[in-house]
């Protein structure tokens, strides 16, 4: 395997790993403080047990997210030294602010975890809120740096040199808002349904139902609201990409020929050689409408762009389909959940819980697929239309061994964290029965 491919594999794998832990570490504090708030209001012991149990989860996920994030801050330079040499100063602002936000989060976490019975109750709760807010701020800032790779701005590119650097303009690049909004909603959806799914399984197995029902409701309320809002953000993103990165949009849709009133393809098998998409469902004129708000607008096809600037079409298309498909299913599940507040008898059926158990991984699969769309869809560029990924990679040979090492380390880590969570739940079920 070529060094470039190995470096890309390692980056993709470590990012994919980090994203899961970072999202849970970012969103779970919100569940935790809601439960904590309910404990303070109602003094119902179940909420206290739940809060303390979630806080252990937050600690474990936060640390795993933090160490894999530290690794990423090194990997950016280790794998892509040429990229960082030029991009580092330009996108330094979101990264330095992110460092600060992350710091605030770690400090607040220190207060929160060790503050039980020692701090003023209200202050203690507020430190929990700060964990959540600074986590979301970190997320937005990091995504803004990624947005810059898609929408490079804040500099003049003259004769291969980056001149007149304006870090603030780079930070507030045209993609930052659409990407950050989409990602934050995705994080809430994915974590909400994942945590909800875990508790749904416990309810399904009739273990400590009172506690798990409360947990399920808090988590899925966040997930459902985010899932319902997500299509709006998706629409903003699609229209933005149609303008800024038409070749990415074409790859997402496996759309080879430029046409007016372009149809939207759902599913289908892409053959990159013959440029055909077989077995698809085509909705007439829908792509034009979704991209430009006009049924007859012209959508550029891949063939309008030089072949060496095409991203891998099949992967981008499948990833996009996966994301939208699962997003839609989660949206429906979100509505079902909200309706079950009215139709309480739904919660007495096994089918209801089974649905949410099955959907537990759906949000994260969609989220990862979305990142595949963004990242693979930007290829062959690392900085869109400025620097190619192959020109940024480290000259050090043998990157494949580094990839294997991370694969090994992180796989074990993922297994151990899952095992720890399962032990956590077992203990939780035992202790609260005694309450």
């Amino acid at each position, binding site marked *: 395997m070529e060094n470039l491919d190995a470096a890309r594999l390692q980056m993709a794998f470590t990012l994919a790993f980090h994203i899961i832990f970072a999202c849970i570490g970012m969103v779970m504090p919100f569940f935790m403080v809601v439960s904590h708030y309910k404990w303070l209001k109602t003094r119902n012991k179940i909420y206290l047990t739940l809060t303390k149990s979630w806080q*252990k989860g937050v*600690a*474990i996920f936060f*640390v*795993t997210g*933090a*160490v*894999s*994030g*530290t*690794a990423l*801050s*090194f990997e*950016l*330079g*280790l794998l892509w*030294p*040429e990229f*960082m*040499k*030029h991009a*580092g*100063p*330009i996108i*330094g*602002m979101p*990264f*330095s602010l992110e*460092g*600060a936000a*992350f*710091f*605030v989060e*770690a*400090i*607040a*976490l*220190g*207060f929160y*975890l*060790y503050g039980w019975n*020692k701090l003023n109750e209200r202050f203690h709760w507020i430190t929990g809120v700060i964990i959540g807010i600074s986590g979301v701020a970190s997320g937005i800032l990091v995504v803004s740096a990624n947005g810059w790779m898609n929408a490079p701005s804040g500099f003049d590119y003259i004769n291969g040199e980056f001149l*007149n*650097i*304006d*870090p603030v303009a780079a930070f507030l690049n045209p993609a930052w808002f659409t990407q950050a909004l989409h990602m934050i909603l995705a994080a809430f959806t994915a974590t909400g349904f994942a945590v909800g799914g875990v508790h749904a399984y416990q309810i399904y197995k009739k273990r400590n139902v009172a506690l798990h029902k409360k947990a399920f409701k808090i988590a899925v309320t966040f997930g459902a609201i985010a899932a319902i809002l997500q299509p709006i953000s998706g629409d903003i993103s699609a229209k933005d990409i149609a303008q800024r990165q038409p070749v990415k949009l074409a790859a997402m849709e496996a759309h080879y020929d430029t046409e007016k009133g372009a149809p939207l393809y759902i599913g289908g098998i892409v053959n990159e050689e013959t440029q055909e998409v077989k077995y698809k469902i085509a909705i007439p004129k829908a792509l034009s409408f979704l991209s430009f708000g006009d049924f007859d607008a012209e959508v550029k096809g891949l063939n309008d762009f030089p072949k060496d600037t095409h991203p891998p079409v099949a992967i981008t298309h499948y990833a996009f389909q996966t994301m939208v498909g699962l997003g839609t299913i989660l949206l429906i599940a979100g509505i079902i959940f909200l309706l079950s507040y009215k139709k309480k008898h739904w919660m007495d059926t096994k089918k209801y819980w089974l649905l949410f158990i099955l959907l537990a991984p759906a949000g994260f699969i969609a989220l990862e697929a979305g990142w595949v769309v963004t990242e693979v869809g930007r290829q062959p560029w690392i900085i869109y239309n400025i620097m190619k990924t192959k020109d940024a990679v*480290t000259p*050090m040979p*043998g990157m494949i061994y*580094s990839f294997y*090492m991370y694969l090994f*380390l992180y796989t074990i*880590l993922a297994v*151990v964290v899952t095992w*720890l969570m399962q*032990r*956590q739940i*077992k*203990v*939780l079920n035992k202790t609260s029965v005694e309450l």
Partner: protein
Amino acid sequence: MIYVVLFFLAFSLFLYVLLGGADFGAGIVELFSSKENQQITKKTIYRVMGPIWEANHIWIIIVMVILWVAFPVYFNIIMISLHIPLTLILIGITLRGVSFIFRHYDAVVDESQKIYNGLFRFSSVFTPLLLGMTFGGVISGSIILPEHLSQYNFGEVYIASWFNVFSLLTGIFFSALCAFLSATLLIGEADEAHEKIYRRKSAIATIVVVLSGSILIIYGYVNDFVFIKDFIQNPYSISLIGASALVLIPLWIHIRKGHKILSRFYAGLQVVMIIAAAMIAHFPYVLITKQGELSLLEGVAPDSVIRVLGVSLIVGGLVILPGLFHLLKSFKMIKVLEP
């Protein structure tokens, strides 16, 4: 503004060495303790470090960010030629972080604790050793500039740059510093029966620091290392080292009298002086390569970037430092902690 950035770079580096170093050192002390003392040390570390543990290790991220934003040329060279030790450091940081949390947050206490403990102790030695070796690599004069890579083979570029006697000695010296910091910190935290253990550890660590430091300087001098030659000729560096040796006297007095805060202050001061001596010795030519010395200020980011970075750092500092201080203060007095 470049001075603000340099200040924060030095400041973050010092805090990482002090807080992160004491944290690494705790694992080293634990490793070199008898079975029974290991349990006590483990509990003490958790009590002292637990609340600030997360924050200790974020300083390295701040250092990285400042380096790549403000000093991209340096960052680029280090990232290419020291790829291997930096990757090993990452493994160390990862194993250490997760094993620390796992051993305290695992809901069930059973045999798996042995694995967590083992990993924690091993990575506590391994990581600072490699951190020291990496720094040793930076100043050893064996790094090859990226534009000359093609003239050398893999071993010369990616291994000899950090895997050499000089770097190894630097690594041992740095690990000893960490152990020294931590043992001194733990003296004040243990109950009277166990204070003795840490006093002894602190004394042993001091001896190792002095010995390994002397060997490092002698080895460097005999073998004509530019850094060492300049180090011993630099009046500031020599005075700082002399001063840090003198501080041993008040440090011992305060340890003996059981002054917790003062003995910590002097131990920290000593380490800061040693690191400062090393940094000043060759400033701003911190990086010494096969192709000559390279100033930190060479290839520095444009003014517009430095300005924004400086402001971000000041704002960040204003938010973070009071919070961190409050955190340290809030938990210092607490004797019994339950997660």
